[in-house]
């Protein structure tokens, strides 16, 4: 965990209100899939750093890619950044997707809803690397849910060379009509491990699905947070058991998360 003044070497619009920024950042060498960073706006009046999940990493070239949707004034500022600009970033933060959970599994489903898709890209790359080494033998499928064709199927092209991708849209304008979970049902396959990131209703449905099927689902959560390092206790999620740190049934999404085993949280 560190803070550094990172230089932007690429920024591009991927879809309506969705942007990708590539930073040169030493912390890329320490990060893993599903972790996040805090990015500090330049604005003098917007003082909280913004938590953004890591989309992709190149640990050797120290490249860190963030993909985000403009959701407010902070991310709006980031969307207007230019190549050569510097941003203070803090990270890598939190516990990401556990790669070791893939060992011995036969069919792994990566499920992304909307702006939840980006962190799955580096996860997929890491799983592929393990598969190439023979550490895992599972079939890997990716289910990506978007709003509509018009809204943009961002990152789909980058997932496709790495795995079989099933697209769904809320309005049916592309792929299966419905959510990523509908895409999974339609495919008629039964994964024995799920990694997911997306809006809360989708994660809640995946939690129910995993419980019914008796499989593990690792889900990445988000919540408004101030510090990103476990101090402010802003970003709590209800848990099924007493948390080792809080000593109540609440965990810090920034520190114990953002990725949780779905059966451990109440969402």
């Amino acid at each position: 965990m560190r803070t550094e003044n990172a230089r932007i070497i690429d920024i591009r619009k991927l879809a309506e209100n969705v942007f990708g920024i590539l930073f040169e950042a030493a912390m890329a060498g320490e990060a893993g899939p599903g972790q996040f960073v805090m990015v500090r706006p330049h604005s003098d009046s917007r003082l909280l750093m913004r938590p953004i999940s890591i989309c992709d990493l190149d640990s050797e070239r120290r490249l860190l890619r963030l993909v985000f949707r403009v959701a407010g004034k902070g991310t709006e500022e980031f969307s207007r950044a230019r190549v050569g600009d510097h941003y203070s970033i803090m990270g890598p933060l939190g516990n990401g997707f556990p790669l070791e959970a893939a060992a011995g599994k036969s069919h792994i489903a990566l499920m992304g809803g909307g702006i939840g898709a980006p962190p799955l890209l580096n996860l997929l790359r890491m799983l592929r690397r393990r598969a190439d080494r023979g550490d895992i033998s599972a079939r890997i499928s990716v289910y990506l849910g978007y709003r509509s064709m018009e809204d943009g199927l961002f990152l789909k092209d980058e997932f496709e060379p790495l795995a079989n991708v099933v697209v769904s849209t809320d309005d049916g304008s592309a792929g299966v009509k419905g959510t990523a979970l509908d895409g999974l049902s339609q495919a008629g396959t039964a994964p024995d491990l799920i990694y997911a990131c997306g809006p809360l209703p989708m994660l809640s449905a995946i939690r129910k699905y995993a419980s019914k099927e008796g499989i593990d689902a690792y889900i990445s959560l988000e919540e408004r947070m101030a510090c990103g390092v476990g101090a402010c206790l802003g970003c709590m999620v209800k848990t099924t058991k007493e948390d080792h740190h809080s000593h109540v049934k609440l965990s810090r999404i920034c520190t114990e998360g953002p990725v949780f085993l779905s059966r451990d949280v109440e969402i």
Partner: protein
Amino acid sequence: MNTAVEICGVSFKNPVMDASGTFGSGQEYGAFVDLNRLGAVVTKGVANVPWQGNPTPRVCETPSGMMNAIGLQNPGVEVFLERDLPYLRQFDTNVIVNVCGHSLEEYLDVVDRLAGEKDISFLEINVSCPNVKEGGIAFGTDPGKLEDITRNIKAHAGQPIIVKLSPNVTSISDMARAAEAGGADAISLINTLTAMKIDIYKRRFALANRTGGLSGPAIRPVAVRMVYEASHAVNIPVIGMGGIANGEDAVEFLMAGASAVAVGMYNFHEPTAMLQVIEGIEEFMRKTGTEDVKELIGAV
């Protein structure tokens, strides 16, 4: 150049500490801040038993500041003694434990439990949190109740007590005098200002608690005014806080009458904020030929 200050006979290597609740128990920021460099570490509020706090969302941003309604979630005094205090003991800094409760009995449970702990320099009594329904601010907005609870806690305390005042009152001077009359060894102010933010597109409150405490540079001028008034109303030391972002802000509070200062929301903006405040005070002293930081206290 001397940056040391003294409060109730306790020496601080510099007048800078964190504001309770913005720095966890210190450990959370260990990767960024060498706690040995701080005048003191002020812990998050400690209650007699674990507290759940409020529903989320608990925080939101506001212009040059933020609102929070954490609701004093904490793991309770026993966990504090087993986990957090041993961690803090490793460092050469003062430990100030912020104490919270819903009732006098709950405050006294914590105060009694901590009474024998020699490594705690002060207790800071939180009678000013705007985000808990019972206790807390109910004691901190009525001078009679404040004097009573201060007197009761003082009678039990094994350490000198700092009473943390709420700004959500008509006369901060009256509250400062009530704390002093009840036997407070020092006072700290300001806690957050009760505030509200509405998400107009969702037609919802930004915080689940509806109201929250406003902090950050947006409240600094209010805080400076209240520190000035309170420090002129009493003869006990004042610890000033409210939106301090750099050394110059800290000097402003010292000149208003504070003997030491706390950095709050700005820890979230910049994890090394307190170190920058310490360096900024030193730079101000160099630039202005100030030999001793104590010369700045109450300089206006």
